[in-house]
Structure formats: C-alpha cells, structure tokens
C-alpha cells in the first residue's frame, strides 16, 4: 500500500498535468505489476466488490473510535468524504503492515460475502495496521469514488510513456469489462485481439461550438440532430452481442428489445448511436428513458409503454474490420447501406442527416430542434476519422440556448469533496400564486468566490436546520438554465427540469419579479 500511497500523495500534491503524468508513468514502471493493473482499474472507475456498505463502515469506525454514531454522521458533511472521515477519527495505530495494494484488495475480495462479524473483524484489523493516509486509501477501495484528478487521457498518456505502446491503442485496450483480479499487466497493454470480444471502442467526443461561421463551408460538414438519449455502442460480433453506454457500462440486458438485432445485423459490426425511447415519430421525453435506465430487468408493461430504439449515426467496424480511420463520409454511406438492407419493423434507424444549403439555413433548422425532441445539432467533419476521445476540430455540438427562469433560493446544503464546508447545493422556488413552490435543485454554474459569499450569507441567515440542509429567507435570486422540462407527479411543483444549473446570480432582481410556475408549465 505504501507505493500506492506515495503515488496518491504525488498526484494529490500537484495540479500540474505534467507532474501528474510523470508520477503516474514512474509508477507504471516500478510498481509491482498486479498493483499497476489495479491502479489502472481504480483510475478508470472500477473497484473490487464492496466488502462493507457505508452504514457498516460508519458504525464500526464509531465503535473503534469510542464515539457516538451521530457525531461521526455530523463530521462527515464537514469532511465531505466518508473514507476520509473514518480515517481521521480512528485512534492512532501501533503496528504498520507492508501489504501491497493488491494484497489489500485480495483481503477485501476474500471478505466479500462473509458474515458481518467476519467482515467487521477483517476491516478493524486492517484499520489497526495502517497509517491514517493508508487507511483513507483502504476505505476508498471499499467505498469507491477515487478522485485523484487523473482523467482517462492523462492515465493512458502516462501508460504510453511507461510502456511505449501507442496511446489510442491503449485507450481501446482498457475499454470494456476486463477483470483486474485475473488480468496480467503485460496482457492488458499488449492484447492484440480487438475485434472478437464485446470490447467497445473508445467513444469519439464533441466540443461546444462558438461561431459556426469559423467552421468553413457548410458542405464540409454533416449535421445531425443532437438527441437527448443515452449514447451507446452496439456490438455484434460472432458470439458477442453487447450494448455499451458512454460510461463503459454494459447495458445489453436493460434493452431486451434490441436482442433481435443480434440476428438482423451483419456479423462483425459495431455501431455508434443514441438509445432513445421512441414515440410515434420522435423520441419521447427523457423521463421515460430514465425509467428504463434505472431498471436492470424490464417489466413487460414498461417495455410496451417505453419502447427503445437505437438511432445509429456511425459505423466503426464492418465485417470485422476497424473502420475508424476511414472518413466519416465513407462510414456514413456504409451505415446507410447497411441499415437500408434491414427488414422493416426493427428497433433501429439511421439518425437522419439534416441538410441545408448554408449556415443560415442550418441555423434555421436548428431553431426547430425542440420540435424534433432534440437539443440542437451535431456537426461532424465529413473528411474526419473517428477519433479516440475528445479531439477539438472535427466534432461539434451546436446546442440550442437553454431555457431560463429566475428563481429564489430557499434551501442550501453543503457540497462534497472539495466543496465540503461550502454551501453549493441549493433548492429553488418560483411563485405559484401568492406562494413560493420549490421546483428544482442546482449546484453548479457559480464561481468559488460566489459560493464562498453565499456560504457566508447562508451561515448568517439560517432559519432552520434539517440535518445538513438549512432553510434560508427567500432573498437570493438566480437565473436558472435548463435543457428541458417534463411533467412529474413525484414533485410538488408537478414538473421536473433537465440539466438545471445556475447561469448567474441576479443581485439586481427583486424576489417579487422572479418567474412563476405557470410560466414554466407553458413550456411543457
């Protein structure tokens, strides 16, 4: 654990990408190989099965520290991280273990599924032989959510530096659901077998566009609707049919209506597209899709009420051949040909291409995006390959301006992690006749300085505390931006917003003049 703790401290002590890459590359050169594999897994969001849940951890830590449970619970929001809270309250340890990262993970894996007494004893024994910092890391192995300020790109860059393997090849090799417990480091980085398994390709990502006039002739570009669904990669290889989400989650089982595609699609093809719930002629509101995502198995009724469809917009592999280097124009043509050859009635379609003679015409079409249930347009350069990750210049999202409403803050709650001890999570209300009705929460969009100012204000103006939540006088007005709005019987206001965030703090706006619920309902 010591070498891993060293790495963690090196990463934590700097905000400079260069220094982080160097620390990580050094680790990938000299750490024990199994530890390298686990570190890659942890940095890409994988973790061993939970040996204990957070309630158990809290209770065991309170007991070991001789503190009442409530005091541990009260400390947690101040620290902003449960793993750290526990590491800080435990009494100092007498012995130090020199078990490696993999050793500790094996210990945790062995504990999973055992009786509560056995797991408790195992975790307490671990706490007893680790220094405060190592305890924090050990706890993180259980709770998950390692945030070391290392992006996927930074990790593969470091790994490329350490191994000499091409970075985008590495990015591809690290995709999918390999098991760090059984994967050998050399196999992981050198595996050549790319087109037989369910392993997905790294997703190409788009950037926002400021001014389309700077993109050159409109004929260089392919425009598509920007759907508000789930980005997905559909893989149909011999013996391997899979649907991956952009978060590298395997979601095949959640969309059983796609199973027919395993036979209908040609063998050895990979499609990039959007999973949406399909209405009569356009996608249904995201809320319906939300119901589908949250269910691991889908009841028949939901399947009938919210049927999914795959809107394909790119073809990454055909007949087992990686097409990513081919220009988009070629890939799109192959995609259209393939889809056109499919029998009717399948839950798949090519995402329509939006055509206009010039940017002005395209802008006019974009303005109608909401009628198509889209968020705007995607612009993709026809001559460009399918990039790994976000490479500026070839893929842009040209979104509609968001909806906005002025609203007043009525509750505030402190944030997590680096935002612990700052009030950053706010609940907002609008007028409903003479009353204020809460209608959304938002927690992003302001600067740290503004959050600090608001935090001071909240502390001075707290009316009542409900655990970590404070009610405050309805005085601070903010402009809230959001991408969509849908009916929601679960909310008091009867509406739910999509991607709400604070656009700005309206110090100039009196509470009397903020928006109304009727105004929001009119957007439905």
């Amino acid at each position: 654990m010591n070498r891993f703790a060293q790495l963690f401290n090196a990463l934590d002590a700097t905000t400079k990408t260069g220094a982080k890459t160097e620390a990580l590359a050094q680790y990938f050169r000299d750490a024990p190989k199994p530890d390298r594999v686990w570190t890659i897994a942890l940095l890409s969001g994988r973790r061993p099965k939970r040996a204990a849940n957070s309630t158990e951890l809290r209770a065991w830590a309170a007991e070991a520290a001789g503190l009442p449970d409530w005091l541990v619970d009260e400390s947690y929001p101040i620290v902003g991280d449960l793993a750290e809270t526990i590491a800080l309250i435990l009494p100092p340890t007498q012995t130090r273990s020199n078990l490696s990262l993999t050793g500790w993970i094996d210990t945790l894996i062995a504990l999973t599924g055992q009786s509560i007494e056995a797991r408790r004893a195992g975790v307490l024994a671990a706490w007893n032989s680790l220094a405060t910092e190592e305890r924090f890391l050990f706890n993180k192995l259980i709770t998950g959510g390692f945030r070391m300020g290392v992006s996927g790109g930074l990790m593969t860059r470091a790994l490329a530096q350490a191994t000499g393997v091409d970075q985008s090849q590495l990015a591809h090799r690290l995709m999918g659901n390999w098991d760090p417990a059984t994967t050998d480091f050399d196999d992981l980085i050198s595996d050549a077998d790319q087109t037989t398994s369910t392993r997905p390709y790294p997703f190409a990502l788009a950037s926002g566009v400021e001014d389309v006039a700077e993109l050159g002739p409109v004929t260089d570009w392919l425009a598509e609707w920007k759907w508000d669904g789930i980005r997905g990669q559909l893989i149909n290889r011999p013996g391997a049919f899979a649907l991956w989400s952009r978060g590298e989650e395997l979601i095949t089982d959640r969309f059983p209506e796609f199973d027919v595609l395993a036979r209908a699609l040609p063998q050895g093809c990979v499609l990039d597209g959007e999973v949406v719930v399909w209405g009569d002629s356009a996608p249904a509101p995201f809320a319906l899709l939300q119901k589908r995502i949250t269910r691991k198995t889908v009841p028949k009724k939901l399947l009938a009420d919210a049927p999914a469809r795959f809107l394909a917009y790119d073809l990454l592999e055909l007949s087992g051949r990686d097409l990513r280097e081919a220009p988009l124009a070629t890939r799109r043509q192959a995609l259209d040909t393939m889809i056109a050859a499919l029998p009717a009635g399948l839950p798949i379609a090519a995402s329509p291409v939006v055509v206009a003679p010039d940017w002005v015409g395209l802008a006019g079409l974009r303005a109608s995006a909401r009628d198509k249930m889209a968020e705007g347009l995607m612009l993709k350069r026809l001559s460009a390959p399918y990039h790994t990750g976000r490479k500026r210049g070839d893929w842009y999202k040209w979104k509609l301006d968001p909806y906005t409403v002025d609203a007043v803050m009525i509750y505030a709650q402190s944030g997590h992690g680096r935002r612990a001890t700052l009030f950053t999570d706010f609940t907002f209300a609008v007028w409903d006749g003479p009353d204020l009705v809460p209608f959304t929460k938002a927690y992003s969009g302001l600067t740290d300085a503004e959050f600090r100012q608001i935090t001071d204000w909240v502390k001075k103006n707290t009316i009542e505390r409900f655990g970590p939540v404070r009610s405050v006088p309805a005085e601070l007005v903010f402009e809230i931006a959001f991408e969509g709005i849908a009916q929601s019987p679960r909310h008091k206001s009867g509406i739910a917003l999509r991607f709400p965030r604070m656009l700005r703090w309206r110090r100039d706006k009196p509470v009397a003049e903020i928006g109304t619920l009727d105004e929001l309902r009119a957007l439905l």
Partner: protein
Amino acid sequence: MAVKPVLSFTEKGIYCPAGDFYIDPWRPVPRALVTHGHLDHARPGHGAYLATHAALPVIRHRLGAITADGIGYAEPRQIGAAQVSFHPAGHVPGSAQIRVAVGGEVWVVSGDYKLATDGLSEPFESVKCHTFITECTFGLPVFHWPTQAQTAADMAAWWGRNAANGRVSVMGAYGLGKAQRIMAMLADHGLQGPIYTHGAVEPITQILRAQGYSLPPTTKVAGPVPTNALVIAPPSALGSAWAAKLGPHAEAFASGWMALRGVRRRRNLGTRFVISDHADWDGLNSAIRATGATRIFATHGYTTQFRRWLEAQGYDAGIVATEWQGEAAEGEPEANPE
C-alpha cells in the same frame, strides 16, 4: 435565591454586569477586556482596553491610538464587584484566558487556546472554574494535530528540498502568531537558509522580538531573495503577483484546516502543513475536564455539534452566539485568523 450570572451574552459580546465590562466585544463598548490581538477578538472603537502586557504592543500596533491598560498574568484586579485575572492561553504570544469571579462564582473565558507548548507562546495554564466558555474552532473528532517536532522536521525537509532545487520556499501563515511560531520552531530544528518576511509579517515580528520573544533574524522582502530563503507571508500572498516576483519558488500553507483534503483541494494548494494555534479535539476535551467546570458554553466553531457532545458527557452545556452565529470560521481558512 436567584443568582445573577457572572457573565451574560449580549448583542455586543460577552458582558459582566458586576464589573460593567465586556470580553472580546465585537461592537464598540466603553470598556473591553481583550484576550489577544487577533482582529476577531481585538476590535477597534472601544473606549478603554485591558489586555496582558505581552499582548498590548501588537494590539496598539494594529488598532492605533487607543486608551489601554496592561496587566500581568495571574495579577488580580478588582473591577466593580468583579475580580478579574488573565492566564496564559498558549494560543499566540501574549494571549490569555480571562477569569472573572463574582462572589464565590468563577467563570473563565478561554479566548482561543491550545494545550501543546510551541516554544514561543506562554504555555496554557488550566484555571479551575464553575463555568467555562470555550472556543471550539476544531471541535470535531476528525481534528488531531501531529506533534510540532514532526511538523518542524517536515517543513525543514521541504525547505531543504526547495533550496537544493534552486527554488525559494514561500510559506503562507497568519501574520500574528503562526508566522513567528514557524520561525521559532524552524530555528529550533535547524535553519536551512535565511528567513525573509512579507511586509504584513515583519512589523509584528519586530515588535515581538523587541518584547523579548526569542525569534531568529528576519529580513523584510525588498527585491530578490536568495534561493535558499524561506519567505513567510500571509496566506493571501500565495499565488499573488507579489509572490511571482520572488522568481522560481514553491508555496506551502500552514493551517489546521489543511487536515481536510477537501479544503486543500479547494484552495489548490500543493504542499500543506497541518499546524494550528487552536486546540484539537483531544485538546479541547482535556482542557474542559481540567477546569473542573460543570457548565460549559461553546463558542467560535462547531458549536452545535460540540454542545451536543458535551451534553452527552454529562455537562450542562450551552452556546454563545458570536456576531456570525458562532460559525463564521466554519471550514473557511480565509475567514479564520489562527
């Protein structure tokens, strides 16, 4: 017979009716007893000040022309019907707890304090009382300070590494107390080069040195400094244009808040040293036990949580609201001069 409390809590601050004076008031009052020179305790605008002889020079420096009287540690003074004395709080040089006795009833206002001796401040002395008003800036069980010797060794190693790499070491530390404590502890551990100071640190350092506190030589920054220098500056100078003029340098921040990773990450500070002039969790608890008091008031910090903890320990516990409902400093290093 109902006994009038020795101290009461008013919107101007802690008030003693028997002596007609206030302790660390935040609104202007005719007569203020002041525990130490930090600006959230020694505020401008009072008619008359009483503070320890050791604290007064800095208070005068900070507040300008004031009417002030000095008092020695443990020196009894009668003010009206109240007998008052000041006792070392170990927080910063000159800092005091204030003991107020009326009739047979004894109350102590802790001001800010720490139990560990830092080699510079007059060491904390426990004062027996019936009612103890305690700060609880770090009144949660997540705060446990490393020893000063450990921190001094870590700081010296950091300074030495920077010097070897040709980089000036810049330490962010509050100008009164923390800054001088760091120089003194590094001098004690072994200096790695000369110590320079920011313009907000040097005058106070000179005043304390003139008072007889043992501090290593310091030079105010006025142009380039050698690469093996340690520059001590207020935290606000970190990352500033002023710091940029020092050339290649490494920055660090010394504060109790640095114990929390969230605070560290928010401030984007790479190197941090956990060192505080306030008591940590164990310090607060042992200080309270040692007073023998049965009634405790919590102020300045995590008052709600700390009060509940004290009640669970069997104390009659309450909260003294300060100007900002007792928690302006919660988690925020900026707002919290240590």
